């Protein structure tokens, strides 16, 4: 038997009205709150990428310094390990007196979360450059600077990028907490869902955060492939 178009539409409307299909509700929410969602996605991305950029700017040079003088490695990585143990939510709350509310404390907390993977992978990346390759570079007459930029950095880069990727996914997932201190982002959908006890919003927020995280991870992989073709032969 074939349902007429009329009947199908009727079915859909009653289902939405009666509220027994979560999907219908989620689609309805997207329809009505589309613009707000776009803003939230944009804020979410912005906060995450700012934190990631800060983490790279802090983590990669520190990682390099730690490799060249192993004595200071623990002094560099220990603080971040300690900080990472503290839950991000706690950091957010603790930062309120210092950095207030809004985007800034959110970015700071997420940076603290993102530095360790970048830092550790940078250390491993530089350490794993085969000594004989460095030596052959020196033997050819490359200066220390040339060896650093033309050999050591490119060879450490795949590992550093793997660290950045880990940090990226972690940061996007955790950025949902930022809404808690008024920084916006997709966390708003989730916290609204929690507040109103609406399962559909909780699930929608969760799905969007996960999708964003997967999407960014995928884009990042494409970038890695373009930059380092020799890794994928």
């Amino acid at each position: 038997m074939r349902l007429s178009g009329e009947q199908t539409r009727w079915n859909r409307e009653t289902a939405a009205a009666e509220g027994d299909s979560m999907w219908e509700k989620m689609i309805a929410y997207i329809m009505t709150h589309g613009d707000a969602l776009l803003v939230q996605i944009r804020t979410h991305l912005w906060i995450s990428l700012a934190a990631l950029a800060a983490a790279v700017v802090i983590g990669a040079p520190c990682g390099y310094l730690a490799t060249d003088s192993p004595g200071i490695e623990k002094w560099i990585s220990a603080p971040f390990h300690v900080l990472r143990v503290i839950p991000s939510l706690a950091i957010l709350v603790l930062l309120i007196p210092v950095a207030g509310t809004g985007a800034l404390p959110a970015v700071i907390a997420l940076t603290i979360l993102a530095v360790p993977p970048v830092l550790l992978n940078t250390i491993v990346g530089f350490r794993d450059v085969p000594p004989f390759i460095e030596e052959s570079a020196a033997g050819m007459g490359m200066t220390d600077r040339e060896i650093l930029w033309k050999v050591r950095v490119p060879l450490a880069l795949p590992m550093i990028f793997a660290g950045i990727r880990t940090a990226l996914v972690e940061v996007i997932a955790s950025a949902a907490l930022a809404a808690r201190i008024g920084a916006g982002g997709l966390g708003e959908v989730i916290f609204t869902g929690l507040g109103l006890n609406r399962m559909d919003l909780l699930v929608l927020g969760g799905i969007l955060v996960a999708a964003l995280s997967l999407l960014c991870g995928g884009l990042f992989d494409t970038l890695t492939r373009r930059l380092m073709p020799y890794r994928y032969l």
Partner: protein
Amino acid sequence: MNDSFEKKSTGAVPAIEYRNVCKRFERTDAKRGHSRRVRKDSLSEAGASGIASSGQKDGFYAVNDLSATVRDGELITILGSSGCGKTTLLKMTNRLYEPDGGSILLFGQDIQKQDPVQLRRKMGYVIQQAGLFPHMTVEDNISVIPRLLKWEPERCRDRVTELLDLVGLDPDQYRSRYPSQLSGGQQQRVGLARALATKPRVMLLDEPFGAVDAITRLNLQNELLRIHRETGGTFLFVTHDIHEAFRLGNRVMIMNAGRLLQMDRPETIVRNPADPFVETLIRSAMEQERFWYSTPRE
């Protein structure tokens, strides 16, 4: 060939002169790793032989009071068992290691007074593992130094083509490959091409054919002889294969436990071994050979 290395007016100035060169390693050197750039050759075994020979606990001489003269245009092979100081000697020649005593002259000039980077750019250096940069294509690997010297892209490309031809690789097929897409023998050829890129007058080759099979090795040896003939450079070739050493070298340096035992033309060494160690070495090589001649073939 017009690929000739600019030769100095054929004066009597030797290409390389080693004067009482010594290199001492402390036992803790390798562990402490005080200098990142100058680390122990990852293939040489730690200390045992050197320590035993010097009979000291804290340190030993990897190269001990070595004097030798290499004439311009010679192909010298350096023969000796593992750990006898061959690599150390080569690395002192391009200042990857600093000697603890004596001096080394390059075309009459003390290398100690020259800038290491400039010095190394005057010499080609090939190591056993080829040491190609995995993130660069064959073309980029070969033209690393030319590009650092700001050669025109055109000139770099032509030079790469020329060099790939020289080492027997089809330029069109190989120039844009990555090292991981090459066989061990092909990597060695590229390593050789890279070292030859700026037409250095001196080539330092540290067991460049260590990791290839017998047939490839024979081919590479023939290519090397051809390249040496065509370029007219001075080649220092380290090996621990006595057949390779005697086949390739205009003269052979035989080392043991950091000391130079004999340096002479292969025939002369076979006829008058200067030392019981050299004699044993030659006898053992002949013992091995005997199998081939004593097994009748149809």
